[in-house]
C-alpha cells in the first residue's frame, strides 16, 4: 500500500488526478431512451451493476403537448377532440369524466339512453385499449404471436366503434350532454356476436400466453408491489387491483348507469408482474359480461343527447369527476368562472400515477425484467405526458 500512496502523491505533483475506484465506476448508466424498442415514447435512465438494476430515474415529457394550457382557450365542446388525443385508443373513457364534470358544472342532464350508449362505447373502448396493451406486452416479452393475435381481434372491436362514431380510434363520441349520435340499427346483435367470438379467443390467449410456462417463469415473482406500497404510492387501476386492493371507480363511485350493472371487481393478491398482466385480462372478460347487461338493459328509444345552448356555460364553480379508464382512475378537475371557456382543467391520469411505481420496482430487478415490469404498470407515455 505504501508505494501506492507514494505513486499517487508523486503523480499529483505532476498534475495528474487519480480517482480511487468509487462505486460509480462499477455501474454502467444506460439510457433506455425514447428510441429504445423497450420503451415507447418514454425514457428512463438506468444504472446497472452487472445484470442488476441499481438506480432508475424516469424522464417523461417527450409527448408533453400542453393539453391543460390549451383547454383554457377553447370552450367546453371544443375541448373534446384534443382532450382525447392522449389515449386515442381509449378515447371514450378519457373524455367520459370530462363530460361528467362539465355536465355537473353546467347542470346538463343526460337522457337515459344516452347514458347507456356512453357506457357501451366506453366498455368497447376498454377492450380495444387492453388488447393493444396486451399486444405490446407480448412483443416486450419477445412473443411475436402475442402481438399479432390481440391486434387482429382488436380490429373487430374497432369496426364496432367505427360503425358507432365513424372514426377508427379518435371517436369524439362522448360529449358533455350525452353521445354524438344514436347507434346504427343491427348494432346490438353485431355487438353480441362479436362478444361471443371474443370470449372464445380469450381462452386461446390463456393457452398461448398466460399458461405458457416460459411466460409464467418470466413474470411470476418479478417486481413485487406489496399492498401497503401500492397504497402508499397511490397507484391505480389494474396495478392496484393486482396488489390485492379491490378498488374500481365503477364500483366505488358509480357514474351514469353503472349502479344498475352487477359485476365483480377483478383483483388478485399475488402482487407480481404476472398478476399485473393477468388482471387486465380478467377485466376484459368481465367487461364482456358488463356489455351484455348494458345491451339488454338499454331503453329501446329515447333521446341520446341533451339539448345544449350554443355555448354551454354555468355558474362559477368547480367539479372533480372520475372514471375507471383502461389505466385506472382518470379524473378531471375543472374550475369554471362562468364563461363558456373553462378557467382551469387538471387531468389526473392513471399512467402518471403509476409511473411512481417504476423506480420503486426496478431497483433491484434484473436487466431482463425491465420490459416485464415497465409495461406491466399499464403505462401509456403519451397519456402520462398529456
Amino acid at each position, binding site marked *: 500500500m505504501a508505494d501506492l500512496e507514494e505513486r499517487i502523491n508523486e503523480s499529483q505533483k505532476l498534475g495528474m488526478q487519480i480517482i480511487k475506484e468509487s462505486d460509480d465506476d462499477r455501474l454502467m448508466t444506460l439510457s433506455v431512451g425514447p*428510441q429504445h*424498442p423497450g420503451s415507447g415514447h418514454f425514457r428512463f435512465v438506468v444504472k446497472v451493476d452487472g445484470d442488476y438494476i441499481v438506480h432508475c430515474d424516469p424522464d417523461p415529457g417527450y409527448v408533453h403537448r*400542453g393539453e391543460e394550457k390549451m383547454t383554457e382557450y377553447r370552450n367546453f365542446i371544443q375541448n373534446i377532440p384534443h382532450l382525447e388525443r392522449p389515449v*386515442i385508443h381509449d378515447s371514450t373513457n378519457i373524455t367520459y369524466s370530462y363530460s361528467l364534470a362539465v355536465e355537473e358544472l353546467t347542470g346538463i342532464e343526460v337522457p337515459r339512453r344516452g347514458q347507456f350508449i356512453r357506457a357501451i362505447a366506453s366498455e368497447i373502448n376498454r377492450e380495444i385499449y387492453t388488447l393493444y396493451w396486451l399486444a405490446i406486452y407480448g412483443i416486450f416479452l419477445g412473443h411475436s404471436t402475442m402481438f399479432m393475435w390481440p391486434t387482429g381481434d382488436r380490429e373487430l372491436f374497432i369496426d364496432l366503434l367505427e360503425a358507432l362514431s365513424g372514426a377508427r380510434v379518435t371517436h369524439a363520441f362522448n360529449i358533455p350532454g350525452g353521445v354524438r349520435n344514436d347507434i346504427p340499427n343491427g348494432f346490438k346483435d353485431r355487438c353480441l356476436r362479436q362478444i361471443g367470438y371474443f370470449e372464445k379467443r380469450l381462452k386461446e390467449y390463456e393457452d398461448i400466453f398466460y399458461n405458457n410456462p416460459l411466460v409464467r417463469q418470466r413474470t411470476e415473482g418479478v417486481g413485487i408491489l406489496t399492498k401497503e406500497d401500492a397504497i402508499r404510492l397511490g397507484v391505480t387501476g389494474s396495478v392496484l387491483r393486482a396488489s390485492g386492493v379491490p378498488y374500481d371507480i365503477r364500483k366505488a363511485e358509480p357514474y351514469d348507469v353503472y349502479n344498475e350493472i352487477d359485476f365483480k371487481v377483478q383483483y388478485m393478491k399475488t402482487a407480481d408482474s404476472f398478476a399485473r398482466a393477468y388482471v387486465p385480462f380478467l377485466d376484459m372478460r368481465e367487461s364482456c359480461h358488463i356489455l351484455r347487461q348494458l345491451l339488454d338493459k338499454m331503453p329501446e328509444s329515447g333521446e341520446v343527447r341533451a339539448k345544449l345552448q350554443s355555448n354551454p356555460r354555468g355558474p362559477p364553480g368547480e367539479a372533480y369527476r372520475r372514471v375507471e379508464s383502461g389505466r385506472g382512475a382518470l379524473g378531471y378537475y375543472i374550475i369554471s368562472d362562468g364563461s363558456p371557456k373553462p378557467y382551469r382543467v387538471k387531468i389526473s391520469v392513471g399512467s402518471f400515477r403509476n409511473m411512481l411505481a417504476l423506480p420503486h420496482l426496478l431497483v433491484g430487478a434484473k436487466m431482463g425484467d425491465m420490459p416485464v415490469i415497465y409495461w406491466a404498470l399499464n403505462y401509456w407515455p403519451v397519456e402520462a405526458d398529456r
Partner: protein
Amino acid sequence: MFKDLINPTHFNVLVGKLGDTLIKALDKPLGYAINWGRIWSLWPVHLETACCSVEFGAASGPRYDVERFGIIEAFGSLRQCDLIVVQGTVTRKMAPRLRMVYDQMPDPKYVIAMGACAITGGLYVDSYNVLPGVDGIIPVDVYVPGCPPRPETLIQGTMLLQEKIKVSKIR
C-alpha cells in the same frame, strides 16, 4: 398496343415508351435491381413520437399487415433500418432526439411524416411545446395526412414512397 401503330401521332409515344424501357432496363440494370430491392424491403426504425403509433401498430397487425410490402416493424437497432415513420406530434423535447436518430441511420434513408401533427403541427399547432411540422428538422419524403391516418392511408403512403424510390437515382 397495336391501335397506337395505326395512328401516326402516337407512333412517337410508342417508340418513346420502348426506348425508355430499353434505356432504363439496360443502361442501369444494376441500379434498377437495387431500387427494386430497396422498394420491397423498407425496414422502419422503432421510434414512436406520439399517438399515431397506435395506428402504425395496427398497420403491422394481421388485418393490414405491412409485411406484405416487406416492411418488418420489429427491428431493434436503427443501424439496420432505412425508413423513419414520424408517428405523430414532435415536441420540442423529442426534436433533438429525432434529428439524432435520423443522423445515426445508414445512408439510403427515407422519412414518412405520418399524421397531421407531423406535417404541420395539426391539432397542437398553437401549443407551446410542439414543432409546427417536422420538415424543420429532417427532410420528409412522403406526407401521410390524417389524425391518425388509417392504416390503408399509411400503406398508400408507403406505396408512394416506393414509386419515389423507383425513379430515384442510385446514390
